[in-house]
């Protein structure tokens, strides 16, 4: 696989580290003013969709520009459909969606 980093261009996948599915959102715990209960945290931490097909997932370009990226990739063919910067990567834009 070569991964087209939006900052560096296409690079060998060995420069990147995989985190996993980018879809799950951390539930808001009561201590953070949310209402999430244990079941939602159990889902978030332990259960996976583990999709066979196109997924959105986090990759980290640690062997390059050190940006967090979100890739759309097929788990059945390893083909990348898109690679974009994760919220917060780069300083050009002001505060981005997903940032606190």
């Amino acid at each position, binding site marked *: 696989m070569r991964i087209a980093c939006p900052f560096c261009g296409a690079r060998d996948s*060995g420069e990147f580290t*995989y985190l996993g599915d980018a879809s799950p959102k951390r539930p808001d715990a009561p201590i953070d003013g949310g209402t999430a209960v244990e079941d939602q945290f*159990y889902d978030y931490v332990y259960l996976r969709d583990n999709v066979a097909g196109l997924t959105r997932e986090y990759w980290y370009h640690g062997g390059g520009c050190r940006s967090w990226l979100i890739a759309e990739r097929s*788990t059945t063919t390893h083909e990348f459909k898109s690679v974009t910067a994760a919220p917060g990567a780069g300083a050009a834009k002001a505060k981005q969606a997903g940032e606190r």
Partner: protein
Amino acid sequence: MKYSIFSLARAALSSHKNWGRAWRDPAPKSHYDVVIIGGGGHGLATAYFLAKEYGIRNIAVLEKGWIGSGNAGRNTTIIRSNYMLPGNTSFYELSMKLWERMEQDLNYNTMVSQRGIINLYHSDAQRDAFARRGNAMRINGIDAELLDATEIRKILPFLNYDNARFPIQGGLMQRRGGTARHDAVVWGYARAADEFGVDIIQNCEVTGFQRTNGRITGVETSRGIIGAGKVGMAVAGSSSRVAAMAGLRLPIESHVLQAFVSEAIKPLIPGVVTFGAGHFYVSQSDKGGLVFGGDLDGYNSYAQRGNMPVMEDVCEGGMAIMPMIGRVRLLRQWGGIMDMSMDGTPIIDKTPVDGLYLNAGWCYGGFKATPASGLVFAHLLARDEPHEEGRRFRLDRFRRGAMIDEKGQGAQPNLH
């Protein structure tokens, strides 16, 4: 037909042209007491033990390709029971004991070879960790020996003992560990199960579940609908896909693990050697090829193939610990899809869906577990309660905080 010296001699008289088929190729019936999805080692062993130990004979094993075409044909054939945590230790030892009598039980040469497994250590801290693991094994009646560098050198004189980063200080050895012939295990269980009347149905892909009042009553397949009293899943890397057909999400991710075989060379490596610190392990097949591997590629995959960076990493690990491996040519390389669980430990349990039973989460250690997995899963399917040796492999252990995490890695499956 019983295989023996006499059957061999008889077949020799007709130039081995009259061997009968080892198992039938039946058309699926309309209903079975138990349908097992997945014709790998685990599924076939489950059918065998259901028939032999629990007296259930009306069984089908459904395989979407041909039996043994998944991970049973993609592993590196290692058997061992060198685990530390309660739940794992005695389960894998049960498996080892079943390996030791498998050929007699099945009347089949599965080429079980207890040639020993050595886990190398390179630091005081690692020695302490291995001493602890060895002690846990011995407390549970499992053989383990902590060897120092001098003793390792006698067994494995060809290793690089003076690697600056990873000098070999010794190793943890389990002499009863070793290898078995992966295909023969599949064929042996298939033949033995078939003799009990189990229907092995190949080229039969499950595409959905039939449910009545919430309970599973059958499976929809590429060869029609098949009714079932109970359905057991033993589909390894495809666990999440099959479970999703029943509306379940599992604590599992599918990851690709690569394995490698070199050209055949004269006998060199006496047993199995693992260089965990360098992400490399190796043994030598009876045919002469060096069989080796390393870490997961690290990303979710169903593709049964990996990428170059891990190939490079594995080869670098091999060169570091065993420099002369660089003179050997790589013959083949492939990938298998691992059902990586959230604590690195398997799940053998009922599911929240009535009539559906789960055998999954074997990570990259499923082959050695084949016989015990079959026995424990068969017990669950037959009795509706866990086998003594599978009672900790529960699906709800993550919610209860009763994880069995040998590596202490947490819910990051690609790091187990």
